[in-house]
């Protein structure tokens, strides 16, 4: 147990906020893409900086990772990583409604990532009376080797991060993608403050 651990009540509250955000985001997505998005219970856990790569790697043999920063009031900030599996790439253009030759693969996953991240976090923020801004989404890499290198070569300036993992499964296209939100230390404290305020209402 450390200062960044969530209590059971805080964990429960965060999970419920995420559930609602996930639900509304996938509803918007489902309407926009004209499909059904299957939802699972999200996972919330704390990761140590040195284990970040291993935990991401265990989650998914991702071949493409798109990162997008988010920041709101009250010091709520973090980075969203959208992780894709290789076999899903050719289903994307279909899903987004673009003509196959209009977009490169990179552009497609960046587009989809941005939609997933911003729809989710907009709803999340509105529940805690906040508002998010976003950085431009960036493709970290479209090959696993390079993601390995990218994450391993870095010495992070944080020890702990809160990791929230949400799986999206688009049934019509049997397309899967994992959204991993990583919230750095000082923002965890800020989120805990917000959660405690909500809990105090009950």
């Amino acid at each position: 147990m450390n200062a960044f651990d969530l209590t059971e009540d805080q964990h429960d509250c965060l999970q419920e906020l995420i559930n609602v955000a996930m639900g509304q985001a996938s509803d918007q997505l489902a309407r926009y893409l004209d499909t059904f998005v299957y939802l699972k219970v999200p996972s919330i856990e704390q990761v140590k900086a040195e284990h970040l790569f291993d935990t991401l790697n265990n989650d998914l043999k991702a071949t493409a990772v798109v990162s997008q920063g988010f920041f709101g009031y009250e010091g709520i900030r973090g980075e969203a990583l959208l992780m894709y599996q290789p076999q899903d790439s050719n289903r994307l253009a279909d899903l987004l409604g673009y003509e196959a030759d209009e977009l490169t693969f990179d552009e497609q996953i960046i587009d989809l990532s941005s939609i997933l991240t911003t729809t989710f976090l907009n709803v999340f923020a509105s529940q805690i009376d906040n508002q998010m801004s976003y950085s431009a989404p960036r493709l970290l890499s479209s090959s696993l080797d390079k993601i390995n290198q990218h994450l391993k070569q870095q010495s992070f300036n944080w020890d702990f991060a809160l990791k929230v993992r949400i799986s999206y499964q688009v049934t019509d296209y049997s397309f899967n993608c994992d959204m991993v939100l990583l919230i750095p230390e000082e923002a965890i404290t800020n989120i805990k403050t917000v959660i405690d305020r909500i809990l105090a209402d009950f």
Partner: protein
Amino acid sequence: MSTNVLICDDSNLARKQVLRSLPESLSTDVQLAKDGQEALEILRRQSIDILFLDLTMPIIDGLGVLQALKDEGIQLPVFVISADVQPEMQSRVLGLGAKAFLRKPIALDTLNEHLRNHGFL
């Protein structure tokens, strides 16, 4: 006469939210379940007047509970309260016999309206 209410949600916060949203004029006897399996155990044991049911839950999810109620012939009004508000999910739930679909976070007037429509108020 008091109404037997069962609230089934894996989130403590969500259960409290439902509990707090119930109108005061409805005198209730409330039980709580934190997943579909717990809820089914209670429903098989005793008569419940109304079930508030979440969908995305571990062990047995909301759809699983609705299916089990149907299979076992247990009849009672079920109000689904879910974050998963996709139209397809709503129609699945209503197709499985739920009386109402309420979106999370729960809106008081919508809840009251549904309670009134089903004669609880």
